[in-house]
């Protein structure tokens, strides 16, 4: 009796906790509302299954607990019941998987008009690089990383000269424009993670990974590292600021290009060349 009651209370408690607790995801700030929707569908289906299984168990414990003279049924199997359960489960799984794969297809299909922004991770800070007026990022290589060239931008690549470099600073992005985040690391694994954007992806030294999203509200958001990267992992923080188009342009004008940073004597020239 007590056992059955506890099982019922576990279901009731879990459901109430889900509904009443203050802990839920942060308000979304990107186009990935679909991910939230899929997650909510999954919560519903799995919640119903959890409650059904545990409540059924509670009923069995209550109804069929040992009493003097009780004898269990002898029922080795029921092909019909097992088939029905298989089909119902497969359907439930399909209902979760189908929207999941559909949204994943969107997630991995970057729109053609997405602007490219590079994020560079290193122990334990974030840097960023935006294409300059030419709209193209210059090539880069970890072997080129030095004190003067912390991101390893290829100095011989003309596309890279006008790239805007933000070393260990904040990243600004304009609202409403799809952006493809190109992710690069110069030392170990990191992961660019902004909870409000829902998206995240590991950064792997030796290769460039990516994800895309469209910022949907302005504000200041914490960047966290989500892949263990050594002792400073928990303190590897950054900031992304989603601006209106005007604010974004103002910020962009204040940034330095790769050419300015590597050749300070050419500041004025490079500054003029900027948009």
């Amino acid at each position, binding site marked *: 009796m007590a056992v059955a009651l506890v099982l019922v209370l576990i279901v009731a408690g879990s459901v109430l906790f889900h509904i009443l607790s203050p802990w839920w995801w942060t308000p979304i700030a990107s186009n990935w509302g679909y991910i939230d929707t899929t997650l909510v569908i999954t919560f519903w289906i799995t919640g119903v299954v959890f409650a059904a299984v545990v409540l059924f168990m509670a009923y069995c414990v209550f109804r069929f607990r040992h009493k003097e003279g009780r004898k269990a049924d002898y029922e*080795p199997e029921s092909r019909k019941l097992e088939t029905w359960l298989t089909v119902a489960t497969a359907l439930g799984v399909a209902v979760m998987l189908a929207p999941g794969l559909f949204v*994943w297809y969107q997630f991995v299909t970057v729109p053609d008009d997405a602007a490219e922004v590079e994020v560079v991770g290193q122990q334990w800070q974030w840097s960023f690089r935006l294409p300059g007026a030419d709209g193209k990022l210059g090539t880069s290589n970890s072997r080129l990383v030095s004190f003067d060239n912390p991101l390893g931008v290829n100095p011989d690549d003309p596309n890279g000269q006008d790239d805007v470099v933000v070393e260990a600073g904040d990243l600004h992005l304009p609202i409403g424009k799809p952006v493809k985040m190109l992710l690069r690391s110069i030392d170990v694994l990191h992961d660019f993670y902004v909870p409000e954007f829902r998206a*995240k992806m590991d950064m792997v030294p030796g290769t460039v990974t990516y994800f895309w999203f469209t910022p949907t509200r302005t504000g200041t958001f914490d960047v966290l590292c989500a892949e263990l990267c050594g002792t400073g992992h928990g303190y590897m923080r950054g900031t992304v600021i989603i601006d209106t188009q005007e604010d974004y342009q103002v910020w962009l004008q204040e940034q330095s290009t790769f050419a300015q940073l590597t050749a300070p004597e050419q500041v004025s020239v490079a500054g003029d060349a900027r948009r």
Partner: protein
Amino acid sequence: MVEVTPHANNAVPAAEVADVELYHPKSWWTTYVFSQDAKVIAIQYSGTAIAIGMVALVLSWLMRLQLGFPGTFDFITPEAYYQFITMHGMIMVIYLLTALFLGGFGNYLIPLMVGARDMVFPYANMLSYWIYLLAVLVLIASFFAPGGPTGAGWTLYPPQAILSGTPGGQAWGIVLMLVSLILFIIGFTMGGLNYVVTVLQGRARGMTLMRMPLTVWGIFTATVMALLAFPALFVACVMMLFDRLLGTSFFMPALVELGQQLEYGGGSPILFQHLFWFFGHPEVYIVALPAFGIVSDLISTHARKNIFGYRMMVWAIVIIGALSFVVWAHHMYVSGMHPWFGFFFATTTLIIAVPTALKVYNWVLTLWRGDIHLTLPMLFALAFIVTFVNGGLTGLFLGNVVVDVPLSDTMFVVAHFHMVMGVAPILVIFGAIYHWYPKITGRMLNEAMGQFHFWVTFLGAYAIFFPMHYVGLVGVPRRYPDIGGTSFIPDSVHTLNAFITVAALVVGFAQLVFLFNLFWSLKFGRDAGGNPWRATSLEWQTPTTPPPHGNWGDTLPVVYRWAYDYSVPGAPEDFIAQNDPGPQTGHVAGPA
């Protein structure tokens, strides 16, 4: 499946196996220390696993103290925190769960349940334990080595695992960890071959594969999987050891560490992840399948009812085992591997939910119209179902590639895998110990202490890990010693973290009661007799309890029926032992 020949009594008589094949010990040392008796080896394995498990328990307390009350304990630096979580995870998954289920329960139960005198290769079986012990000692040594144990996370992802930014990366820690794993795999292989060959070749007459208890099916399938999966970890460990000590670059691309260009170049960090998870995902089921098997037998025995859908249960175990080799990259959805892999691995991962769900249905349908005795093993079995269903369902979030993206690397993942492969299998281990302790020692475990242990552990563990999902949903990443001032994390999360820590401390202390019970009952426990649960399977039918070396006396048992003849209509008692030929008119046991 489990047809019994209508004239069971006319079946071939038991082979008169003269008991001379076994190496019988001649001294105290060869009886209790360098023993070749699978039952002694089982107890050695279990004792060592539980001892090192206590280390992992203390480590979990330390990490929870840091998470619940950050900044309060000066000695828990970030370095120490990462060392605690790494060693906690590695110990729990490999040195406790794998060793206890396969080395412990496998050794004790396989020969007894299939009606064999011992494992088929007793000497290799003995070596298996001693190499395992050596692996554990090397692991412990890393706590005392310069620089301490590795703090690379239990996944040991390179490049950070072997670099100086990670505790133990450029010191002894990672080297000892890799050597210990290599030793563990060598030792396990010796034992694992034994378990497989004993099941295939050592069964008593009449013990067809489809009459074996599900416990044996679970351990057998898990062992086959382990023999196939551990080699992937083995090569990954050897390669990383080469990268660390010889300067090769299997997993190391060109990189700059703290402003310094390193010599490495051309390797792939993601290759390590594929190798690791090719082992790592089957590993989840290596732990889960023995638990599935054991819990099936606990439920059937204590509900006095045959397991519902035995054939389906066997095939589900085998299918889950096979499928678990094609889902590994669902741990890597955000690793930077080619995104199209996501379609394949999400599909295979969700397919595996179907046979798993069927197992759950069959467990609860076994309860239906049963005669449920709420004994301690049954209570733990019920608690297993609750936690396993909970943890399994959150797996559908993480397996469904796009839903995984926001949740990956958050506390949601930590909550999920603790519920499904921490709490659930450990509840089965407890249930199994309460169930088989009487056979191992001849005495029952104390009921009052057992009840206390059960309720605190079950409700406490649920209180730890259920709310933890919501910490992850908020967005708190895992492997953070201190979430600090982060704008999206409300203060209430810190309160919840403190609550979880208190619950973890309480649950941990309840385990001390369990340990005390193990020793107390050895001397003061109620006398159990040979078959206190009135169970059908062979281990309960030994001529003496505890069974001696050789198990069966002069004659091996002959098996006439499956392991689930409970409450057979017309039978004089509510169980018929597997080696009971039954009345001459004979009920045809099992489904026709």
